[in-house]
């Protein structure tokens, strides 16, 4: 016993008993045999180990014995483990580390897509870009119109993408369709989008070839992803030449609730800046919204959003038929719009992502184009569920279903039309990463329309390959269907979805500060609705003759953005060439270039920050070649739509000044639209015998916007 005890005491007093030492050395390299400097080599559960030097070499000595696991790890690489038996002496051990996938080394689907997000590092447009683009004046759609593939159509709202009309572009918020994303149409007066860009953390704008998750859009989808929990409670006040507003968001631990209200009235502004329209009652708008967020778990999020808007206006149009120019045509409108939605997202077992969403929206417009009175009501109930399952490191499979119930009614004087559309769709889609450099996305979407009594199956395919460190190519193909405008849907002679087939080739170079992309495309249209006369007024009752219209759009989009070359400067240039024709007029079998299509479009957006002046200055220049217009003197088959308006030019400037008002962070923003005073004509209206015409131009030669935006957060200095 004494003997044993003495051993224990020996151990107690001489705890470090050196049995034998093993020296481990070697080299750590990547797949290309380049050294991985700074990699960590260690024996698991021991302090022993070393870092790789600039040559990737390492060396250390350990007193551990027996079977051990040696681990080599490095930021951006997948760790490698090796089993080893230690029994003294020297051991050479080399490691080859593979880069783990990241945004730099992994291919992504880019064809047709412009992504903007706070979270991703490589984005083409960030949410901030939207609000600092001079020509946009804070409107999401205005900023998107500076991207290639879109048409600047200033006499009407909407996104006209790659030869498609505004109905072919859809807006979704967290997967829910927004059926009236713009303020209600007024003839020859373009309207803005209904939603503030600050509501969204991500903007994904696709000009073609998009995923099977989305349908009912032949040209484009704009997928908006709403903000999560705000970082803290905060308020804001805005004072503008056109009105004012304010809001407050309260943040609790896992919950937030925000309320915002804005009132816009253009009367004072119109009295100061000469208008080219004869306003009776300038537009006024009241908007309010409630935003609720609740974090249900580490990964779960419940969101509710309610948006209410009221707007009214009235104006007079010159009666072109009256040679004396004394009589006028009155147009008045008021509109109520509600958009509400509830969504839930969670991740289960790290591999399953569930998204559920429901929405109700209602739009009610009363229109008084003298002497008629029209009432349009449109309600939409919708539900959508998707589930995604990740396979391996990057590959993922998604499936989902959606249903839309859409009662609508149109009242023309005393004629009332009531109808209800029921639309449903299911989709399945998979992203298969064959390697980090090669991905294939295949999808299938099946849709059914009750009023059309028709179904469709739309295949989608996109293949992308990473060429080098910064560039990649992407090919995309797909069929895209949509039901004809609901005003045609009530007719029984239509039984086809309108259809577009896209072929897109995309080359993209993105490094940290510069982006270049070029994207040729070809698009074929089938089963377009054909009408007798072109629509002059969005509230005119229209009848479709058949759905035998065909067409095509082909062209190339080029985009260059550079934040590197000039200090404090960020600029982008986009160019689009579009050749698009379709036969949407029943009596003209020939395919014709439509009134909304320019062949050449250029946008230059330039922003510079002046830190010492606490200011930023930016300008936007837009050019679009002339567009066709209808001339009643040239309605024979060889001459119809052969006239072109003059080319469009617009130079807008924007000045932002940062300051504090009563210790609150404040932005003062001034924007002048068409500062150079270009005389633009968008189209012409003719009298019935074609002897006289009026030019339709902008609502004012120049536009001026001045706003003060105050952020009321916590006082950081307290």
């Amino acid at each position: 016993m004494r003997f044993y005890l003495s051993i224990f005491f020996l151990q107690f007093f001489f705890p470090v008993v050196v049995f034998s030492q093993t020296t481990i050395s070697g080299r750590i390299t990547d797949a290309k045999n380049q050294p991985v400097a700074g990699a960590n080599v260690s024996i698991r559960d021991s302090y022993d180990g070393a870092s790789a030097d600039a040559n990737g070499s390492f060396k250390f000595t350990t007193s551990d014995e027996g079977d051990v696991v040696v681990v080599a790890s490095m930021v951006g690489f997948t760790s490698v483990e090796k089993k080893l038996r230690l029994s003294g002496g020297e051991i050479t051990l080399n490691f080859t580390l593979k880069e783990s996938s990241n945004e730099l080394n992994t291919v992504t689907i880019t064809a047709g897509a412009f992504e903007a997000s706070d979270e991703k590092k490589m984005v083409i447009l960030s949410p901030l870009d939207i609000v600092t683009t001079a020509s946009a004046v804070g409107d999401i759609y205005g900023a998107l119109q500076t991207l290639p593939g879109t048409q600047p159509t200033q006499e009407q709202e909407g996104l006209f993408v790659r030869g498609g009309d505004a109905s072919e572009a859809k807006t979704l918020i967290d997967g829910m369709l927004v059926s009236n994303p713009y303020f209600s149409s007024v003839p020859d007066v373009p309207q803005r989008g209904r939603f503030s860009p600050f509501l969204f953390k991500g903007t994904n704008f696709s000009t073609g070839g998009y995923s099977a998750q989305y349908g009912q859009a032949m040209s484009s989808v704009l997928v908006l992803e709403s903000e999560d929990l705000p970082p803290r409670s905060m308020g804001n006040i805005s004072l503008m030449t056109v009105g004012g507003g304010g809001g407050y968001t309260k943040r609790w631990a896992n919950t937030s609730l925000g309320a915002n209200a804005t009132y816009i009235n253009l009367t004072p502004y119109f009295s100061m800046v000469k208008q080219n329209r004869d306003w009776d009652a300038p537009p006024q708008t009241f908007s309010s919204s409630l935003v609720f967020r609740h974090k249900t778990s580490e990964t779960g999020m419940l969101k509710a959003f309610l948006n209410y808007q009221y707007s009214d206006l009235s104006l007079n149009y010159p009666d072109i038929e009256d040679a004396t120019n004394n009589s006028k045509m009155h147009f008045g409108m008021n509109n109520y719009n509600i958009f509400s939605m509830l969504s839930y997202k969670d991740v289960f077992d790290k591999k399953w992502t569930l998204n559920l969403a429901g929405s109700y929206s209602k739009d009610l417009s009363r229109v008084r184009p003298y002497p008629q009175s029209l009432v349009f009501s449109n309600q939409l109930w919708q539900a959508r569920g998707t589930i995604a399952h990740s396979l391996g490191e990057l590959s993922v499979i998604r499936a989902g279903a959606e249903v839309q119930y859409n009662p609508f009614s149109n009242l023309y004087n005393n004629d009332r039309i009531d109808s209800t559309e029921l639309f449903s769709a299911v989709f399945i889609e998979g992203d298969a990463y064959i390697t980090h450099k090669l991905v294939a996305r295949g999808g299938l979407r099946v849709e059914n329309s009750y009023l059309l009594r028709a179904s469709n199956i739309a295949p989608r395919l996109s293949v992308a390959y990473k060429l080098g460190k910064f560039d990649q190519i992407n090919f995309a193909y797909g069929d895209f269907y949509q039901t004809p405008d609901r005003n045609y849907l009530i007719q029984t002679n239509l039984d086809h979805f309108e259809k577009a087939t896209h072929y897109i080739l995309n080359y993209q170079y993105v490094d940290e500060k510069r982006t270049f992309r070029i994207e040729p495309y070809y698009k074929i249209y089938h089963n377009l609705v054909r009408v007798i006369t072109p629509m002059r007024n969005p509230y005119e009752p229209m009848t479709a003759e058949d759905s035998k219209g065909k067409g095509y759009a082909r062209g190339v989009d080029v985009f260059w953005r550079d934040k590197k070359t000039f200090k404090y400067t960020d600029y982008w240039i986009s160019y689009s060439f579009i050749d698009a024709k379709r036969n949407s007029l029943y009596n003209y079998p020939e395919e014709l270039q439509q009134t909304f299509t320019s062949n050449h479009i250029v946008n230059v957006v330039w922003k510079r920050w002046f830190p010492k002046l606490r200011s930023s200055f930016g300008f936007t220049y837009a050019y679009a070649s002339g567009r066709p217009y209808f001339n009643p003197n040239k309605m024979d088959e060889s001459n119809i739509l052969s006239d072109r308006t003059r080319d469009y030019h617009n130079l807008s400037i924007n000045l932002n000044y940062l300051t504090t008002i009563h210790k609150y962070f404040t932005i003062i923003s001034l924007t002048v639209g068409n500062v150079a005073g270009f005389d633009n004509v968008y189209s012409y209206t003719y009298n019935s015998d074609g002897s006289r015409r009026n030019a339709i131009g902008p609502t004012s030669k120049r536009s001026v916007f001045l706003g003060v935006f105050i952020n009321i957060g916590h006082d950081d200095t307290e």
Partner: protein
Amino acid sequence: MKKYLLLLMCITTSVFAQESKKFVSAMEKNLATLKDAKTGEDYTNIANAFERIAKAEPKEWLPSYYQAFALILSANDVSDGMKKDAIYDKAMAVAKAAEGISPDNSEIVTLQSWITSMKITVDPMNRGQKLGMEAAMLTAHAIELDPENPRPYFLKGSGLFYTPEQFGGGKDKALPVLETAVEKFNNFKPKSKLMPEWGKDRAMMLLDECKK
């Protein structure tokens, strides 16, 4: 029987003592290396050393704390924004792991706030507003957890020092916060040799700058 129990106790305590002695001496050695570190490589190597200890001692928060600390400083020599981000992301993951071991720890929350503000520097235009608020919230939380900890005040003060006046920063605003920080530094006594004690010299330097 008693004898054996006593013996067993003797053995186990001696093993524990040995273990903890090994931990303390390894930490002390690495902390000394950390103090002398200058280049990015130095900081990477010392971060690696702390990582090895952290992996072997899953119940100790300090190795992860210092690993994250060294990682932040190792990124200063990196110019590629993507790589910087990857390092800060790892530092944050490590700091979160430390928080898992020692929740409601003012020092760890302070470190998280620091990492968040460093992430802003990669892309100030786009991240400034959002991450700036997050960093400020973390600092406030760190003060809440331990009002006597000088480091969150120092971080807050240096944040204000480097923030332009028009964004609510500037020397005037930094001055009182840095004064508080220095005062708290003077009263601060780390509970052990291994506990964080960085920041005092820098805080005093910035305070002098503010007074100029």
